[in-house]
Structures are given as C-alpha cells and as structure tokens.
C-alpha cells in the first residue's frame, strides 16, 4: 500500500487502519514442532468455551498464508525444522511468533536429546515466550495479550531477524 503515491496524511490514516485491524483480529496458526502434545491440548483448550480466546478476536487458522501469529510448541526436532521455517516464510508480513512451553524456550526436558535443535529461536525469530510445562490456558492468553499490547503501544517488540548470511547458509544447507 505504501507505493500508491499517497500523501503523508493518507499514508498515516492507512497505517492506523492497518494497526487497528491487526490488533483486533490476530489470526493464529499452530504448529507442533516436536512437542509432547501437552502444550497443544492447552492451546486448543484456550479456544474452547471456558477460556474462549475468540472473544479477543483470536481465531485459529488452517493456512499459514492467512495467519498473523504463529503459535509454536516443542523443542524443534531436526525433521520438523525445515517445515517450521517454511511455515514461517509462507506467512505474510507483519508476522509474529509466540513460543509456548518450556521446550520451545529452552529445550526443556528434552535438552540434549540427539534429534532436537533445542529451542525455537534458533530456527525462527520469536516475539513472545510463554513458559510452563505446559503453560495454563490463562498464561497463553496472557502471552497473546502482552504481544497485542506491545503492538498497540507502538512498534512491535524488537526481534532479531536472521541476517542475510544466515539466510544464505540456511538455503545452502536445505536446498
């Protein structure tokens, strides 16, 4: 939208509109990259009537191309690493990642197992962390709300995007 040659005033209005829409309807996609299912059933429980994340506009989406927020769990197994990367790359900008559970943050109990990378921010940049084994649904909602509040107050939380060199290495290693 920025290359429509609009005046600064209109650009500002459009930006505000985009921000408003983004904060009120974050569509989420969920990917299990090697988790034990504990976090995944708690994420599902977050969407069901007791906790009902949909009242905040959060909706679980099937396709990464429709999603704004990637909720991922698990210590990232070597086999699902490429998939996680691909799902992240398929999501349109701006995109945010919420890492749910101890394994996603530090590898948790699987630290040192031979088939795991260890934590999610070694593979994709993460914007919010929700600790717990597994975190309660309230904690997951809290993580999402913190992310949305940060968006509302200004710029998205600072994240370390991969450098060009890292991306090249990634391509050389996988393709």
């Amino acid at each position, binding site marked *: 939208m920025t290359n429509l040659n609009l005046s600064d005033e209109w650009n500002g209005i459009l930006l505000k509109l985009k921000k408003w829409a983004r904060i009120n309807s974050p569509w989420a*996609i*969920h*990917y*299990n*990259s*090697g*988790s*034990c*299912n*504990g*976090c*995944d*059933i*708690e994420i*599902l*429980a977050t969407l*069901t*009537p*007791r906790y009902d994340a949909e009242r905040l506009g959060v909706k679980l989406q*099937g*396709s*990464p191309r429709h999603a704004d927020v990637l909720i991922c769990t*698990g*210590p990232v*197994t*070597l*086999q*699902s*690493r*490429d*998939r996680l990367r691909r*799902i992240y790359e398929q999501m349109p900008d701006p995109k945010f990642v919420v890492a749910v559970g101890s394994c996603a943050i530090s590898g*948790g*109990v*699987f630290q*040192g*197992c*031979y*088939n*795991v990378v260890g934590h999610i921010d070694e593979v994709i940049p993460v914007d919010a962390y929700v600790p717990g*084994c*597994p975190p*309660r649904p309230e904690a997951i909602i809290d993580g999402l709300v913190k992310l949305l509040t940060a968006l509302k107050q200004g710029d998205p939380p600072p994240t370390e995007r991969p450098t060009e060199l890292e991306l090249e290495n990634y391509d050389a*290693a*996988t393709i």
Partner: protein
Amino acid sequence: MTAVISPKKEKFIIPIGPQHPALKEPGHFEFAVDGEIVTEATVRLGYVHRGIEKGAEARNWTQNLYLVERICGICSHIHALTYALGVEVLAEVEVPPRAQAIRVLVAELERIHSHLLWFGVAAHEAGFDTLFMYSWRDRETIMDILEALTGNRVNYSANVLGGVKFDISDEQRKVILDGLDFLEKRTHHYLDVATSDGMFLQRTRGIGITRLQDAQRLGIVGPTARASGVMRDVRVDAPYAAYDMFPINIVVETAGDLEARFVVRLKELFESFRLVREILDNLPPGDLQAKRFPRRIKPGEVISRVEAPRGEVFYYIRSNGSDMPERVKVRTPTLCNMASVLSLAVGHHLADMPMLLVGIDPCFSCNDRGVSICSSQGEHGRWTWERLRQFGIDYYANKV
C-alpha cells in the same frame, strides 16, 4: 506401509501434512485418488521423533520418570506409571496398596479426560463443532479435578519411584464425586447424540469397518480393537497396580465401524466413573511411598504393560547395575493402530480420511519413536550417543 488395490501408471496424489487443518499434530500422508475414492495410502512419520529412548540412557532412574512422562502430554500419567511399575519390579521394592490405588485413580481420571478430548476432536473432524465445544467445556471439569489432586492440569507427576506424591483429602473426594456426577449426566447425553443424531451417523455408521479377523491380523490394540470384538484389555488380562483389587468390565462392540468406536469409548467412561467412585469408597489405608528406594539398581531386565486410553503401552527396561538404565524401549498404541488406517483408507472417500485417522485416536508424539539403523557398510552394532547425534545432524544437513 503401503496398501494398493488398482496399480495404474498415472496417479493423482493428494499430500496432507505435516501442517494441515485436519491434523493437530505433524504427520505426512499421501493419498492416491481415483476421483473421490482413495486407491493408495502412505504415511510418513517421525516429525516428533526426539530421541527419548536414547535420552533415557543418559539420565538417572528418577530423572527418567519425568522424561517418559513427557513422551505424551495426553496420557502422561500412564507412561510414568508403566515406567515406575517396571523399575519397582527391577529394584524389588514393594509399593504400598494405598499408593497403587491412587495410581489407578489418577489413571482412570486421565482416561476420562483423554476420551472426552478424543470425543471432541472426533466431532470436530466430522464437522460437528458444537459438540467439540460442548465436550471440551465438560472436559474442564476433569481438568479441575486433576489440578486439585496433583497441582497441574497436564503432566501431573503423580508418581514417584515406589509410590505416589499426594494423598486424597475429604474435600478433594467431594470435588471428584461432584464432578463425576455432572460428567455422568453429560456422557449419557453424548452417547445419545453419537448413536441417534442422523447427520453424525452419516459420518460414522458403516464407515471404516474393521472385522474381527482383520483387527487380529493387524494387531490393533485398545478401544479400536474392542470396537471390532477383540476381547483384549491389559487391565483384565494382566492386572497391574490395583486393578486386581478393583476389577473392570471389558466394553466390547462387534460392529467394528466408527460408530462402534464412539460407543466403546463412551461406555468406557461409565466404567471409569464407577471405578473411581469404588476406589474413593474403599481406599486402602497405609503409606504413600515405599520406605526406601535404591539409587543404583542391580542388573536385570523387565517388561511392563499398562492399558493406556489408546491401548496397550509396553516398556522394556534393562539395568546394568548403575544409576541409569541401559535400555528403555517403549511401544505405544498409536503405532500399532496406524496400519489399520492405511488398510482401511483404500476404497473409502477422501472426505472420510480425517474421520478414519481420528478413529484410532492417534497420538503422534507417542508414535514417533522407533529408530532402527541399518548401515550400508553392514555394521549393526550399538551406536554411541555422540555418533547418533552426529548422524542426525549430518543426515538433515546433507538431505537433498
């Protein structure tokens, strides 16, 4: 694992997964279709393979209790229970009867939570989201009970080697009984819906029929097998923990279709309600833990079998006299049942695939575990930790 009926030169293959709206967990399926009918089905597993069995060899006996609990977040108590029962036999430690009864109590509560969870997910796959929301709302009752007992909603850590961690107070007893009364009422309603709702029955009745001989040939376990008339339940065949004090009745259906699997699982809920009430009324007195548990366990090997919500869980544990196990082998029910999905898929509509898959109550995180390496140089020795780790890293780095 592949099944074929009409080998043609040209095939139209529909890939599903590992990330797909119909799958809550990663697994990759390829269905070759002729129009709407599936002619060939292949599965690729292993997306959740973390290397737990090898990891268990580098942790001590107590640490492993918490590692195996995280093989599966849905039946976490069952894994810890199977492991603890095996290790206690190896260490020749007698577990007090009260601890065994509480273990069975938590196992049955977990079965209730798991079956309600499955019921919701199955309804969701059938396109009946209202039922999914209802059953998950009711499932929160059992989550509250488990939290009141153990302090956590999932991964309860109820077991220690030689006993359990907590006792049951009178208030907790009342919370459990109130919760069960509510759930029993709801389960009657669900059984009614699953056997009489016309729309729902169109997705389940007569779909995916597994006959008795097929179930036996494919080695299906758990409620999936009992829906085909297989009289097999470890709780009855080889009672463990306190199941000899509190026997259960096997629930068996003979139709073998998806409806029968719904009925078996829902009727098992009533059996669990009854058992939990019975245990609460007749809880044996005594200690919660064995007096002493050795840090090192003398050499030996043991097999431990337990009936998980999805079927039989099997552990083989070997000790070499140190404070760590030499080998822990786990066999989980989903892998046993996966072959039945592939053989059933052929000849069914593509739209039935999610229902057929969910019919076995799949749990991929239990599933993705077997690792068998046949080296091209013809060496079949034991692999060291470093070598296995390096193999994994190199394999995925060089993959084309």
